[in-house]
């Protein structure tokens, strides 16, 4: 392998021209990467084409499968018929063959519906949802109001708009847009727009390169699928408090479930959302309930923390290296509009609650508008998912889950 091959490979891996490249090599490398960029640009329009082509191509493939199931008697008749496009030599035989084929097609179509009816593609991202999606950054480009980030996720390619107000965190602390590079694992938390791009509120970065996820069409989960175990691939809170959850089955299929509000709240409270293993249970009105199979992360209701402020950086404990939004849970000590003080396992944490924060009140009976005033939450256990303020290091809430009232834990144990 030549030196230039090695340099190009490094550049494609890291997104940065290797420091040891000479000026001539740098120019050559940049030209080659730009050529690759043209190809990647074309992929978007090819994707549009493939989406448009898919239904017809699938129907054609269904017909091919149906044709393969013809009974032997009909197969013999078909085999006796001339190749398509040529005139029939024996009209009587052809008529019988066509009748047989037509019958088989009807039967095959009916049988095929049973198979392909499950291939009911569905969009995992709907406008207005607050979505949390995991993936790998494939491209970052400047945009008028920040940056446009392309992310390959299991549910497809996702376009993300990062603005100056987007919180970017890594596993330790606040990070910056410069750290968002092709190849890095990322979790996006943001609001889905009409174009199904996500306006990011928080971007959580992994500490290492992510693996490109296996892609599959997202199919709609059906009532008959209840009872299966699956893994949460994406999680979107809808404006009505239910959740649109994409689950990956053991066989790799992606299934979209509308999950009742109570289950959504429990999943959020557990601290395990993306990647959580769940058991799917049927609920009412086409909705599903999810039961967590993993242990929830510890909460202060069982382990009260001291009333000290955690050191700068993330106030939550993280599994190593994987991207994750900041997740804290605790007792609200003080609240005012836009700000809460929460006592967590690690101590007292200040939380900013900006406009647009999704409040999940569950069965608490708390009015969401009043909850945002802060004071009604004092004395309640809450869960917050979000990012960090780059200047103050306060937690910035994307989602606020309101729980039950609790006794204030004894401080300073």
């Amino acid at each position, binding site marked *: 392998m030549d030196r230039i091959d090695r340099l190009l490979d490094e550049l494609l891996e890291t997104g940065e021209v290797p420091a040891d490249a000479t000026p001539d090599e740098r120019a050559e490398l940049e030209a080659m990467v730009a050529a690759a960029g043209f*190809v*990647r640009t074309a992929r978007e329009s090819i994707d549009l084409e493939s989406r*448009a082509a*898919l239904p017809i191509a699938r129907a054609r493939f269904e017909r*091919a499968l149906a044709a393969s199931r013809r009974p032997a008697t009909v197969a013999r008749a078909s085999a006796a018929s001339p190749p398509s496009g040529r005139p029939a030599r024996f009209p009587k035989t052809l008529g019988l063959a066509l009748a047989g084929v037509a019958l088989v097609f009807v039967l095959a179509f009916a049988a095929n519906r049973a*198979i392909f009816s499950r291939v009911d593609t569905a969009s995992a991202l709907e406008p207005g949802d607050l979505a949390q999606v995991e993936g790998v950054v494939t491209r970052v480009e400047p945009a008028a109001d920040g940056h446009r980030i392309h992310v390959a996720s299991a549910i497809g390619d996702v376009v993300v708009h990062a603005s100056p107000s987007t919180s970017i965190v890594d596993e330790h602390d606040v990070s910056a847009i410069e750290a968002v590079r092709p190849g890095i694992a990322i979790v996006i938390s943001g609001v889905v727009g009409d174009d199904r791009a996500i306006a990011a509120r928080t971007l959580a970065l992994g500490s290492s390169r992510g693996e490109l996820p296996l*892609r599959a069409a997202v*199919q709609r989960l059906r009532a008959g699928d209840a009872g299966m175990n699956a893994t949460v691939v994406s999680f979107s809170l809808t404006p009505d408090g239910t959740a649109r959850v994409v689950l990956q*089955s053991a066989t790799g299929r992606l299934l979209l479930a509308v999950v009742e509000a109570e289950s959504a709240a429990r999943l959020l409270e557990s601290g395990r959302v993306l990647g959580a*293993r769940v058991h799917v249970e049927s609920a009412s009105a086409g909705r599903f309930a999810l039961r967590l199979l993993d242990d929830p992360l510890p909460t202060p209701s069982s382990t009260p923390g001291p009333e000290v402020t955690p050191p700068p950086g993330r106030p939550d404990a993280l599994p190593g290296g994987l991207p994750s939004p900041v997740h804290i849970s605790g007792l609200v000590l003080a609240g005012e509009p836009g700000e809460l003080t929460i006592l967590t396992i690690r101590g007292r944490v200040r939380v900013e609650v900006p406009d647009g924060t999704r409040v999940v009140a569950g069965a608490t009976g708390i009015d969401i508008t009043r909850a945002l005033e802060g004071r009604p939450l004092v004395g309640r256990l809450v869960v917050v998912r979000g990012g960090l303020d780059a200047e103050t290091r306060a937690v910035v809430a994307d989602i606020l889950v309101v729980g039950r009232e609790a006794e204030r834990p004894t401080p300073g144990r």
Partner: protein
Amino acid sequence: MRELEVEDHAPGQSGATDAESLARRAATRDEAAWARIFDDHFRDIYAFVRSRLRDPTAAEDLASQVFEVAFSRAETFDYRGLPIQAWLIGIARNLVRDHIKRAIRRGPEEELVETVMPATTGDVAGVELRTDLAAAMRTLTDDQQTVIALRFLLDKPVSETARLMDRSEDAVKTLQRRALAALHRALSAAGYTTAGGGGGG
């Protein structure tokens, strides 16, 4: 629905087991398995074929044929470390080669048919780029076009590209460098300034 229960979930092993299970079912012409294979791979196979053909209708036709041919030869698929997609891409490469040979035999008019999709993209600059990119791609060798499609259209890592092309990783790295250099030359000749940015034209 037939679903395997998730018990001791080990992502790496379970992924391989799932793929193997799917491949075994595919080999027996299990139609549910083929429905899933179609949905999992159509997009990539279409993109791969489309990168080689200017006509989207022909690309759609060929991409569909890939699955029909694969299904018809299902019992010949030997799952021993060979991903299903590698098999599908191999079939796609052969179908594309045959299609191009036939088009060449039919004469230049056939090759000159240009049916990009301005109505779909609504972006004239994008259409021009696609047209010029397609022309530039045609100046590359078959292997160079394949490595470009796998690495930059399908986002395959070097290791997977090497498996799909039955080459060493070093050979793929060399091939991709030569392919990108050739593509850059062709795009420059078409008037694109490719240094320092990939999105313009």
